[in-house]
């Protein structure tokens, strides 16, 4: 791993003072967590686009994925890169910000301004580190509901998200059915599979094996487990792609050379690409957040709260659902979406489902996928008509 050189610039400290709006909740407004702990005080950072209409009926909550954040459609404050869903969210885009009020909040356990392991523990004045309580998808959703209460938004027109964001969408529909008019879980499942837990565990072990992790207290030592987190990201990134996409993009091509060097240098383009992914990720993401948020996904099994019967999670729901999956996604394959769909059908819910043909793997939901855009736009337009949104 000698090639994983640390980059000189330290990330901005977004954990306590994010460069986005933040709502702070005092000790009188605690966030109860599934693990039994209570966060108080705590804060939630969010970003919004568009305008809330007078009827407060046009709010759309976007839920971000594992390594995403609230910066959906604006330049990222740390990397300067475009928003992660700026192909979908914006004026005249499928999630039209001229029409809808779009909100996205950083998840609890994250590192971009919502309380997480990199935030300051009010009791010690030092970063929480691994003293931070474990969080769940339901905790994330609960914190978002409290944010919306604070913002005066009783009912959401739509909740949409991919991957872990899609898990939150399903949890929203189950926990707050009366607050969700329409739901779009994309490239996701109602539970995290054994294979996905396995990949996450490899990533976590890579972080914890880095001597700079220091038992999770690296903040105080002025170091960060860069190499461990980079390796975790490299492994994770492979699971977001597909064999076909890797072959198409990289094949067996060499990186800036004509022949193998017979060393462990990055001879192949794919190696160089993964190393780059790892290094750049480290600059914007907290290693402990990676542990906590992957763990939250692992714990997710929506049916478990409903006697093991997923359909019970949606019993009597009035929410209209639209599920989207991608043919080459092997992290959340189509059968996961189908399992959710069958449960929704069994519950008598209004559900649409479309599988988009793509060779881009799980990441397809973040990329230029016209089939997805068409489905999102069409579903939202029809739902907006039904809700009377101009």
């Amino acid at each position, binding site marked *: 791993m000698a090639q994983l050189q640390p980059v000189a610039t330290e990330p901005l400290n977004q954990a306590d003072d994010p460069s986005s709006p933040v709502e702070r909740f005092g000790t009188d407004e605690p966030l109860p967590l599934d693990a039994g702990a209570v966060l108080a005080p705590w804060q939630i950072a969010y970003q919004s686009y568009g305008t809330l209409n007078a009827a407060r009926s046009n709010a759309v909550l976007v839920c971000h994925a594992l390594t995403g954040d609230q910066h959906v459609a604006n330049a990222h404050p740390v990397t300067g890169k475009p928003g992660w869903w700026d192909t979908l969210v914006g004026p005249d885009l499928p999630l039209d910000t001229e029409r809808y009020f779009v909100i996205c909040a950083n998840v609890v356990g994250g590192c971009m301004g919502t309380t997480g392991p990199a935030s300051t523990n009010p009791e010690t004045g030092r970063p929480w580190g691994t003293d931070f309580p474990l969080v769940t998808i339901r905790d994330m959703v609960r914190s978002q509901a409290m944010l919306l209460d604070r913002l005066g938004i009783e009912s959401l027109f739509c909740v949409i998200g991919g991957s872990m964001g899609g898990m939150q969408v399903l949890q929203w529909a189950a926990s707050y059915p009366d607050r969700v008019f329409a739901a779009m879980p994309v490239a996701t499942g109602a539970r995290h599979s054994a294979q996905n837990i396995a990949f996450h565990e490899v990533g976590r072990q890579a972080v914890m094996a880095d001597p700079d992790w220091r038992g999770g207290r690296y903040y105080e030592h002025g170091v960060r487990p860069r190499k461990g987190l980079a390796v975790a990201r490299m492994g994770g990134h492979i699971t977001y792609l597909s064999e076909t996409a890797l072959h198409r993009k990289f094949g067996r091509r060499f990186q800036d050379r004509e022949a193998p060097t017979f060393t462990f240098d990055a001879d192949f383009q794919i190696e160089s690409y993964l190393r780059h992914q790892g290094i750049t990720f480290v600059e914007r993401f907290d290693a402990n957040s990676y542990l906590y948020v992957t763990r939250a996904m692992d714990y997710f099994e929506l049916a478990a709260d409903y006697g093991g019967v997923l359909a019970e999670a949606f019993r009597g729901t009035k929410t209209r659902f639209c599920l989207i999956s991608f043919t080459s996604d092997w992290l959340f394959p189509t059968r996961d979406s189908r399992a959710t769909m069958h449960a929704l059908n069994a519950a008598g819910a209004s559900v649409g489902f479309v*599988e988009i043909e793509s060779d881009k793997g799980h990441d397809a939901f973040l990329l230029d996928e016209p089939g997805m855009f068409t*489905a999102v736009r069409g579903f939202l337009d029809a739902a907006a008509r039904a809700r009377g949104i101009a």
Partner: protein
Amino acid sequence: MSEAVRLRPSRARPSFERERADGDGESIGRPQGASSTLRGGGGNGLGPTPAESPERGGESRLDLLLVADMVEPGSRVLDVGCGDGALLALLRDRRQVDGRGIEISRENVSRCLAKGLPVIQGDADTDLADYPNDAFDYVILSQTIQATRQPRAVLENLLRIGQRAIVSFPNFGHWRIRYDIGLRGRMPTTENLPHSWYETPNIHFCTIRDFVGLCRDIGAKMEKAIALNAGGQPVRVTMPWWVWNLFGEQAVFLLRRR
């Protein structure tokens, strides 16, 4: 398969309910509470409703209207092989039906979603098994059964999922088809069945009599049966089964679980 059926709108109000079948001894009664085959007043006319999509054009297909008229207003309907959602939209807009659809084509699913129709991408052969019992009042299978791998299993699933099933299909006993096979010695291609034998998706053709036999085998009660000739005109009700089977190019059956 919806493209296979292009029946010319002819009469808005055909009346051709069969009271009794001959030969097979099948009794085809009236639907419960229904006074005639086609109910409703002017609302069943052929004109478009405002909610209909542009690609539907200004006319509703007669076969859709025939099926729509078999459905009680306000009921729950699953349309298997719903195409671009024309029938579901018709049912929603004119009969206040709570409709769902299954469609194999991705493009059609997107069209349905854009119309606000809850349609899922799926396959009648594999996905019906996942639906719970009695989930719907009606399950509709329009011009699709001949393209399924296991028509009997599909039909049984329809009657498990729904209280009633509405099945329409091309009649392979039609005289034109018999002529092609019997006299010309060739597999038939017609306006409604345009595919050559080597490229047709239709792998399980049946005649009207064959279908009646299958209904008997699985214990389905036939509440209504309609046959349409090549011009989209209903075959006279007074005609015996063999006439239906010879001159009916299409058939529509309303079935009920026994």
